């Protein structure tokens, strides 16, 4: 579905990404981990068509991305600034649905459904600035889910939520992907990358490039308690951890 070839991106005096190659199949959930500043957000912005990469090309379903593709949603890392303070939570979630040719009541219902899924049905009539950071983050997740994109890009979407909610949201992501959504999830939490992912991509720091592309060999039905006990999970976590810290012995890159 998504092909990234020889992707490179330079900011004024700084190489954020260099020679990134990546392929994502339809319906896959790919975790992207790496130290902060390694170019994870830059990579997502290139895929979203928000910035034009300095080098290489990205194709989505065979067509090169030159502008924001249709059927794509992003949960931005800076979630609070991406919500509109003058709209209620529900209107924020419903706004993108206006282009999908649905009636107002259908849009409102879809928005409420998505808010319910992230546990925020009670906050529908509040304004974003009346919510905590974690709740705002969930609103921006709800907005992306209600949109029902074919490709969902999430940039550290669970950074500000508490541990319990985080687990609930991870399971929510695992549920929505069953509908065939392709998901790229950026995180700096190694456990999370393994728990939700079919694959884990480890990015190197400066310049960002793919250090490892690991398939997660866990059964697709996952559970917060028992999955994390599996030897495969423990093993993967250790391996990804080593790679992120740059301690992998040469040749360990798959």
């Amino acid at each position, binding site marked *: 579905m998504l092909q990234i070839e020889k992707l490179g991106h330079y900011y004024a005096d700084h190489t954020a990404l260099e020679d990134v190659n990546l392929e994502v199949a339809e319906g896959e959930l790919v975790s992207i981990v790496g130290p902060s500043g390694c170019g994870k957000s830059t990579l997502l912005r290139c895929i979203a068509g928000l910035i034009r990469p300095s080098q290489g090309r990205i194709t989505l379903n065979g067509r090169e991305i030159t502008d924001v593709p249709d059927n794509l*949603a992003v949960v931005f890392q800076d979630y609070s*600034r991406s919500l*509109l*303070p*003058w*709209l209620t939570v529900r209107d924020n979630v419903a*706004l993108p649905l206006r*282009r999908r040719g649905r009636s107002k009541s259908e849009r409102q219902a879809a928005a409420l459904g998505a808010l319910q899924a992230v546990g925020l049905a009670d906050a529908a009539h509040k304004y974003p600035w*009346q919510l905590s950071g974690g709740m705002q983050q969930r609103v921006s997740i709800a907005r992306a889910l209600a949109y029902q994109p074919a490709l969902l890009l999430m940039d550290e979407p669970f950074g500000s939520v508490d541990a319990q909610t985080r687990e609930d949201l991870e399971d929510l992501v695992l549920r929505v992907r069953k509908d065939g959504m392709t998901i790229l999830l950026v995180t700096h939490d190694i456990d999370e990358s393994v728990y939700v992912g079919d694959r884990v991509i480890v990015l190197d720091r400066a310049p960002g490039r793919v250090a490892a592309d690991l398939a997660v060999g866990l059964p697709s039905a996952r559970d917060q308690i028992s999955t994390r006990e599996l030897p495969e999970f423990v093993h993967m976590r250790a391996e990804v951890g080593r790679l992120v810290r740059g301690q992998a012995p040469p040749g360990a890159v798959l």
Partner: protein
Amino acid sequence: MSAAVAGRRPGRYGVGLLTGILHRWIVLAVAVACWEVGTRIARSPSFPPPSTIVSKMYHLWFAGPASHLFLTSEATGNLLPSLGRMAVGLAASIVAGVGLGLLLGRSERMFAYLDPLFQFARVIPPPTLAPVFIVLFKLGSQMQIASIIFSAIWPILLNTADGARSVDQLQMATARVFRLSSTDRLFKIILPSTMPKIFAGLRLSLSLALILMVFSELLPGATDGIGFLMSDAQSRSDLPTLWAGIVLLGILGYLLNTLLLMAERRALAGHRAARRVDTT
């Protein structure tokens, strides 16, 4: 801006609000009392005491029949045309200023081309253009409204352009990602986020419109209006009427500004609450 917000802070507490109002009115009352005493002692015909001015205002304008809301024909014949021209001029300035400002602010190229021109036009003192307007437009209301528009439009236009240029990048990125229609971008993102700047411009424009309203009525061709009334009184050396006009303009300016502040508070309630949360 921050001073204005700080000044309104006590408004959130009942007692603070009351003493705040009291303090303000006490100062005004003392000033008026001094004025009364001073003018009575001086006995200058050029400076009638405020009590004389107020009674003049009453007899001139507000002693009419109840069916006319107590307005005299003098009032309906002069105050209403003035206010009408100002309203039309200000409304046209808002529509054109906000429209052009958004266009200018959202298009880099338009901005590069037109900003120097507008900056230049803005600094021309509007009264100097009055003679040109007298030639260009029909004498009377048309020329007067044109003068109001030409002075009041700039603060709104330039402020709107400035605000539209500084819409949050991430909000615009969100609009692109979710492919919002251009109408939605305009009405759900650009316009709301420009609103504080529009109101800042509007406050300047309001006082400019008031000034030009009076000034344009002092020019040849004026047949009614507060300014016309005053220049007429001046030619008859009718100083109490002249002073009545000055006080009326002061009250008018105060009322209009209060109305604007109320509208601004309503329109920007969400903005201010959001900022308060951000900074704490």
